[in-house]
């Protein structure tokens, strides 16, 4: 099953490599990974998506907690949560295609953030399924390049991951 893990991490040199190293060392999967400092500059917040059965996920969580630099770990997928991913893609947009792409972007509530005579750069925000669906939807268009930030997320309600 797909899981979203949120990790509060000491913002120290080498701490990210310990997290990433753990996954390769123990043969766990990382599907996406995002990391940046939080409002507290001493802490980074890392969101990663992974998949595995319950036993594997439990081991991943425990092993993350075991890392000295890790302050807290939560599995967002255990409760109601919000997840977002941002995608930028550059598509070929000539005469006829332009209107069709524009329509598609509107349907997905995306934005065209850069334009030139031959291409659009499109920004889509949403959960990963929505981004996948957009790629499907413009299937006929020529994608020149594409970048996704990976998932980040928060639990719904008042629950918060902090010190």
């Amino acid at each position, binding site marked *: 099953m797909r899981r979203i893990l949120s990790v509060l991490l000491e913002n120290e040199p080498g701490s990210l490599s310990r997290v990433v190293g753990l996954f390769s060392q123990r043969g766990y999967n990382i599907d996406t990974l995002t990391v940046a400092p939080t409002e507290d500059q001493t802490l980074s917040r890392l969101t990663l998506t992974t998949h595995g059965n319950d036993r594997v996920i439990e081991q991943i969580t425990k092993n993350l907690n075991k890392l000295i630099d890790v302050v807290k770990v939560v599995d967002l997928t255990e409760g109601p949560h919000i997840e977002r991913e941002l995608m930028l893609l550059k598509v070929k947009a000539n005469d006829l295609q332009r209107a069709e792409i524009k329509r598609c972007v509107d349907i997905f509530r995306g934005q065209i953030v850069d334009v030139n005579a031959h291409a659009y750069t499109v920004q889509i925000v949403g959960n990963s399924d929505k981004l996948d669906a957009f790629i499907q939807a413009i299937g006929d268009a020529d994608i020149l390049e594409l970048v996704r930030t990976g998932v980040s997320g928060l639990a719904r309600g008042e629950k918060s991951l902090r*010190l």
Partner: protein
Amino acid sequence: MELLSGGEIVVRALKDAGVKYLWGYPGGAALHIYDALFQQSDVQHILVRHEQAATHAADGHARSTGEVGAVLVTSGPGATNAITGIATAYMDSIPMVVISGQVPREKIGDDAFQETDMVGISRPIVKHSFLVKDATEIAATIAKAFFIAGSGRPGPVVVDIPKDVTAPNHRVPYEYPEKIKIRSYQPTVKGHAGQIKRAIKTLLGAKRPVIYSGGGVVLGDASSQLIELARSLNAPVTNTLMGLGAYPGTDDQFIGMLGMHGTFEANTAMHHADVILAVGARFDDRVTNTTDKFCPSAKIIHIDIDPTSISKTIAADIPIVGPCDRVLQELIDQLGCSDDSQDESAITEWWTQINEWRDRHGIYTKPRHDASEGNIIKPQDVIRSLFNVTGGDAFVTSDVGQHQMFAAQYYLFNKPRRWINSGGLGTMGFGLPAAMGVQLANPGADVACVTGEGSIQMCIQELSTCTQYGLPVKIINLNNQALGMVRQWQDMQYSSRYSSSIYEDSLPDFVKLAESYGHVGIKVTHFDELEEKMAECFSLKDRVVFMDICVDRSEHVYPMHVAPNGSMRDMWLSKTERT
């Protein structure tokens, strides 16, 4: 506040961390620290002959005392030579701090002379690591390193210090922190009360209980609690290779080691158990054999300080995270006030069954020697002789191979921290340097290194260190003229094709070799001189003695799990007999 240079701070912080002996080897990046060491006498530095030995010696110190071992090496090759010893300590959860010199800060990343990314290289085999960026950080970092290494589930910690940070001309205020607090690191100190209640109920309801105790009981100094609990439950106890000594080896309730080379009764009892109390053990693959077939009818209670050890390979029915001594004590206390009671007749019946297994295929209780085979020495008898001569009270370190398994099976350890071997990594070369660390930490004690002619040659240079520092360890070399454990597998699985497991007359004369370092060498070739020469060896209190004992080359270690696809109870009992 006192102003000290970075180099002086390293040494002073080591002293304040309680370090008496620092095992190491100098080199460019560490020279400022070495100069500071020279100018004081609180911390004694011991110069080994290879950095691997420094880590094993500090490891032996740690295992035999419970203190954190300390190592100092230089950058580059010094650091990489230490890696095997760090990995050895990591696999067995041994507390150790390794300080490595690093190239100066401004050269990091330039492929400078003797630069290696020590923090990167050691990352998967340390509990934690630090790169010190400023002289003002040294003391606090070393204090944290010792705290992390020695608390919770212990392990090695690397502190990498660039050379310019230790420079003598830059002096900063010295302050060793009185209390250490790390917000992201708080080891569990107490077991969960609800789980402990459930465990009590399950233990009292058991008809065929087994206590399976591991290295965590030794490391957690929980031996007395283990004994008390086992006595009050009248339950059989088996120890892992790492756990030997935590429960007295000569006690009636002890059914021997379990696992790949465990006793028939321990492995069979595990297989048939209805409740297994695993404490400070990690269901290692050398214990469980095929996990799908592991102990089919057992409910498993698992106590461990490290949550990641629980339900890693075998799912626990009642997990309890906490330090072994505390949790066992809570179990003992609550056992006394529980309303439930044991089914005593079931336990009696269980013991009848276990004793029958014991009598059927125990390990050899009489000498293995068979006069009809001539005067040849069986390796098992060497260990028994060692046990007799040392009154069962020696520190025994070991290398890796058949000799290690014979030592584990035949030296009956009655105290924890007496059996010192590389269980997790299985590092040949561990035995002699570990023995040096044990000897220095326990002056006057009998320290024996049980080894093989293969393993001893992996760190034999340390005979010289023994000379320099007067470390009178006794080397018991079970010389079977082969990489015996490899050859055993080749006999069993490769139709005796001895691919690179024999040396073709290239072995040194170990007696002369020992003598060349100023030690005593004794060669033993006949069974009837074994006991007498063993006694002579241990009568030479102040000397290093190298006992080169020619043993039966064809002997195998039994019992041995049938693998792959075997269960706990599937064993070879001899070359021709299996369960």
